[in-house]
């Protein structure tokens, strides 16, 4: 018996993640317009990065990681595309793109923790290929660039050792192969 008036979320409606690359005119307010479209229509933003890519052409590139059902994700793409300053929207997930983010991770000696933890932190950093960009007698700052999953795992491990603070850039992404946008 279906007692609701709109279709209920069934198991077929799987929540997926999708990364969009949006090429926009670098005009004032363009970021507010895009972020506002997401909040106004109730869409999720998991990560958003923006920066000017071609100064002479006044173009900026926005990379957005979002999640939703396939229908919602297609609607997000169409809604992005109809914004007036948007030149192009590309679904990077469908193009098996390279996705990377950078994290700065501060780890410090917590109370009784001893040198053992310091060694462990360095060992893990080496295993992940993180760079040590700052060190004091009681702390480190690691720089790790990689897929979000790796960054996530690294941060979780560091939590056990004495994580103080994390700063992440959000995802930058680019499609594989010779072709440009």
């Amino acid at each position, binding site marked *: 018996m*279906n*007692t*609701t*008036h*709109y*279709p209920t979320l069934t198991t077929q409606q799987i929540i997926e993640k999708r990364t969009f690359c949006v090429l*926009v*005119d670098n005009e*004032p*307010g363009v970021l*507010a*317009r895009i972020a*506002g479209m997401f909040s*106004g229509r109730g869409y999720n933003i998991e990560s958003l990065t923006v920066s000017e890519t071609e100064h002479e052409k006044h173009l900026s590139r926005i990379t957005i990681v979002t999640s939703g059902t396939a*229908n919602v994700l*297609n*609607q997000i793409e*169409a*809604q992005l*595309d*109809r914004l*007036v*300053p*948007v*030149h192009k929207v590309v679904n990077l997930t469908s193009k098996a793109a390279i996705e990377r983010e950078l994290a700065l991770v501060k780890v410090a000696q917590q109370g009784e923790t001893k040198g053992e933890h310091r060694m462990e932190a360095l060992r893990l950093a080496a295993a992940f290929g993180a760079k040590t960009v700052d060190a004091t007698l009681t702390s480190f700052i690691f720089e790790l660039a990689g897929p979000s999953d790796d960054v996530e795992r690294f941060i979780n491990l560091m939590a056990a050792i004495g994580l103080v603070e994390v700063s992440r850039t959000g995802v930058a992404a680019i499609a594989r192969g010779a072709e440009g946008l």
Partner: protein
Amino acid sequence: MTETMTGAEMVVRAMQDHDVDTLFGYPGGAVLPIYDALFQQNSVQHILVRHEQGAVHSAEGYARSSGKVGVVLVTSGPGATNAVTGLTDALMDSIPIVCFTGQVPTHLIGSDAFQECDTVGITRHCTKHNYLVKRIEDLPRIIHEAFYVARSGRPGPVVIDIPKDIQFQRGTYTGPGEVQHKSYRPKMEGDRRAIERAVDLMLKAKRPVFYTGGGVINAGPEASKTLRELVRLTGFPVTSTLMGLGAYPANDPLWLGMLGMHGTYEANLAMHGCDVMINIGARFDDRITGRLDAFSPGSRKIHVDIDPSSINKNVKVEVGIIGDAGNVLKEMLEIFKAKKRAEQAEEIRPWWKEINSWRARNSLSYQRSKDVIKPQYAVERLYALTKNRKTYVTTEVGQHQMWAAQHFHFDEPNRWMTSGGLGTMGYGLPAAIGVQLAHPDALVIDIAGEASILMNMQEMSTAAQYRLPVKIFILNNEYMGMVRQWQELLHGGRYSESYSSALPDFVKLAEAYHAKGIRCGDPAELDAAIHDMIDYPGPVIFDCLVAKEENCLPMIPSGKAHNEMILPDFAGEIGDIIDSKGKQLV
């Protein structure tokens, strides 16, 4: 073509270059330079409204009835915030508007200066696009872009916020010809292969229906013509949304009437039972679909829309065609002509038989009365007595709006102006003013409710000042009837705050506004009174006293499917129809 002039002069010059003959506005400190430039020319007529919301609705009426862009000028702060409802209305109903707002000088922006507000911030979500002009060099390009954006693709409102210092600065003006927008290029031509697939579906249909909408009106009068040709060639039944009325003539045998919440039984059942649905420029709004999981369950759907985000937004379709309705209809017509099968007329005959049996239910009928004017009767008579004239109708929002849609029949596009998407009470009078300015010789009637009309009543002054003979026909039921009806349906008849108490005497009010007032409450005198209204050469407020507790039927209650309509011959208590889940919907 370049010339040096001030920013304010550029605004006026650009209006002239875009063939703007009428501008709706209200002055204030932050737009005085533009008002000064307007003072020194004659080609753009400025219409002084009495409230900035009225300015935008007037521009909407002007735009919708003429196919041109409506233009508005308001001051900073309260001028801009007063315009917000109108802008939102235009966004929801896809009406092309360019709205100039004054702003405090650039060096004061962000300092909470007198009459400063973040206009671009506030209007970002209720415009198709907006601009804050920070350099005089950008002004001409921005204005030309704004006109282009407002009218192209899916039309909508555009705001240009101009700080006062920019209005005084001198710069070089370039004409519209030299400007092309960097990124915005709506797709006008439909994909040929998709159109062919659509026609193939149409050719196989046994139970087809055309479902047309405001997009056909947006596409211009040519599109309505092509629609007529295509519908007649196919012999398929056709229905339309509230926004699309007039695109297909209501006096035609293939016409099923409006569909949706207050649409006809035959239109809604045809939508429910069809095997191929051809949506041209309609957006599967919730007033149409009702309960989504029960919406036209057995049909294969074709959707033509200029906005890619409209396709598959609410309802999944099999063939989506992105393009201008006029262009796509032309191609459909051409392909259908080439492939037409004569046998199909026979194949769809059983479908027509079924539709005719639904028609026979006569879902727009109502209990007639000799003692009291039924609101449906009033609209019927208004239609009968004006149909041989060039008549334009606007409405406010409520039951009267639906009765107007049901009982006033439109045979031409652009004759019907109503607030559909936002449902803005107070739309009708200012819109009628805009329509009258675009069509000085036409008969323009605002079919109103006694509650709605008070929301922008001040615009009577505007009508008086410019001698605009608009006719305000109030279906006065002394209730916010639509609210009362929902309270009867959903809340046990507890009429919380929906009675129109302390109403003004509308006849005296008309006189106070230098207009004619007419009151009529007797069905026997109605025709004569309507004639009086039509024959009077100036503005009229007609206070038509109608049955107070009439319900607007038929109705698909919220949360129900198309085949669960309440018809006028329903005998039970309407308060028992909707369950608790349905009550949560709007």
